[in-house]
């Protein structure tokens, strides 16, 4: 293929975008609407997952040690636990710190107690990166020599594991349905748009145009529409996301521990390339396969 032919077909693709205004608008609207819903669903889901993850990270196991166990051994056990992959953080709480915290909770009731009643309560708080591994980790810790007791909240761990799995499955399901609907709607729009130009394709073929020559302008047109159609909802979503973050921060500040949202760019560094790839992909494959039907002349 000559370079001039490449640029000619590219130019024809660009001209087609403006020449077939209604087709372009219909395709743009369809792609934009589908990718807007996709982007919105994605933003909500990743934020929801992030909130669950943050809450999960607050779930800890408390490890108590045998009476009189030297501090060095306690430190060693703490380091041993901290080295495991499912553990995100290990915090040592000395007997004095434990009493200070507890006496603060007791308030006036703690007044007059001079000796630390929690003298054997030095412990490690273990925070998990994956709460579903809690039961397994507890079993492991209980086997370690020197460990007296392990406190855990099985109910909380199971609840988070369940919600997390549910959110993951719902996310995958929703995104799959949205993408299928998008592909269906967009291929329908492209089919209608190209059917109108069936005559043009037939004439090209009669004159001796190769399949490439006929197809290339349509494919370029599809890619351009796909690119614009995916960029528009991204811009819109970006502003909506920023406004939503500001609104949550202003109006729901009291829920800031629960509504832990992701910063804009944490969401959009994934959403931008994925949306553009979907838009361009749909534009490319939609026009490629739809034109193919009309090439048998």
């Amino acid at each position, binding site marked *: 293929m000559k370079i001039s032919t490449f640029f000619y077909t590219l130019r024809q693709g660009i001209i087609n975008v403006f020449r077939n205004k209604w087709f372009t608008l219909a395709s743009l609207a369809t792609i934009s609407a589908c990718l807007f819903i996709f982007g919105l669903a994605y933003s909500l889901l990743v934020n929801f997952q992030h909130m669950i993850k943050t809450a999960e990270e607050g779930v800890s196991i408390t490890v108590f040690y045998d009476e009189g166990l030297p501090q060095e051994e306690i430190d060693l056990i703490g380091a041993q636990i901290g080295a495991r992959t499912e553990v995100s953080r290990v915090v040592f709480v000395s007997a004095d710190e434990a009493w200070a915290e507890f006496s603060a909770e007791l308030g006036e009731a703690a007044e007059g107690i001079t000796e630390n009643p929690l003298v054997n309560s030095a412990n490690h708080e273990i925070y998990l990166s994956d709460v579903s591994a809690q039961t397994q980790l507890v079993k492991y810790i209980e086997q370690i020599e020197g460990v007296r007791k392990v406190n855990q909240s099985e109910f909380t761990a199971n609840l988070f594991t369940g919600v997390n799995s549910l959110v993951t499955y719902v996310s995958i399901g929703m995104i799959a349905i949205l993408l299928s609907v998008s592909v269906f709607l967009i291929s329908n729009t492209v089919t209608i748009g190209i059917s109108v130009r069936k005559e043009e394709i037939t004439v090209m073929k009669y004159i*001796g145009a190769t399949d490439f020559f006929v197809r290339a302008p349509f494919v370029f047109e599809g890619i351009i529409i796909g690119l614009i159609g995916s960029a528009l909802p991204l811009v819109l979503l970006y502003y909506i996301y920023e406004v939503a973050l500001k609104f949550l921060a202003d109006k729901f500040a009291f829920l800031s521990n629960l509504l832990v949202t992701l910063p804009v760019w944490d969401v959009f560094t994934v959403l931008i390339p994925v949306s553009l790839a979907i838009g361009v992909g749909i534009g490319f494959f939609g026009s490629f396969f739809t034109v193919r039907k009309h090439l048998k002349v």
Partner: protein
Amino acid sequence: MAKDTKKKRKVKANSNVEKYAICLENINKSYEDGVPALTDVNLKITPGEFVFIAGETGSGKSTLIKLLLREIKADSGNINVCGYDLMRIKRRNVPKFRRNLGVVFQNFRLLKERNVYDNVAFAQRIIQKSEREIRKNVPSILSAVGLAGKYKAKPKQLSGGEQQRVALARALVNKPSILLADEPTGNLDPKNTTEIMHLLEKINENGTTVVVVTHNREIVNLMQRRVITLRKGVIVSDEEKGGYIDED
């Protein structure tokens, strides 16, 4: 030795066929419902001839055109156009084959959104001519068909006769060896019909084989050229300087 003889025979057979611009041998073609469209058609047209293929609606003319363009394939027989064996040609070679043909249709089939110049230049772009050559060839062919001054006009701004001239210019700009005209005067008034037929004669005088498919009695009788008459998919007459044969 035997293999060599076989090879020579094949080449000889091919060269025999290739001396014709169009050669159909025992061609049979049925519609999808099994009704015969063409039955045992034998037809030979030599380079430089001017031939009418005449017949009423449903006589098989359109099927014949589609076969010659390799839009469809015959059920049986041999068909050779411009040296291409259309029974064995690969799909990817069909565009290259079609560049040897110029085609003109009854409804002109111009690209509505493009002006006269672009409609003609389009045919040159398909065969990857440079812009320089296109700028030289297109005005020249538009001038030959009498449309030099209308290169900027869109098809809808032209009369039927002018649109057919654009179609002719598009068909001829790549210098095809055969011009296939499918009812070229079907949508034209008598004055434009005569003008288009004169243009076709002129094209033929320049060496292009011209095949005109028509059921226009007047032009067939007026031109006094070779006339092949089809009736219900069968060639019923093939006459030099013939006339239009009515069904009854």
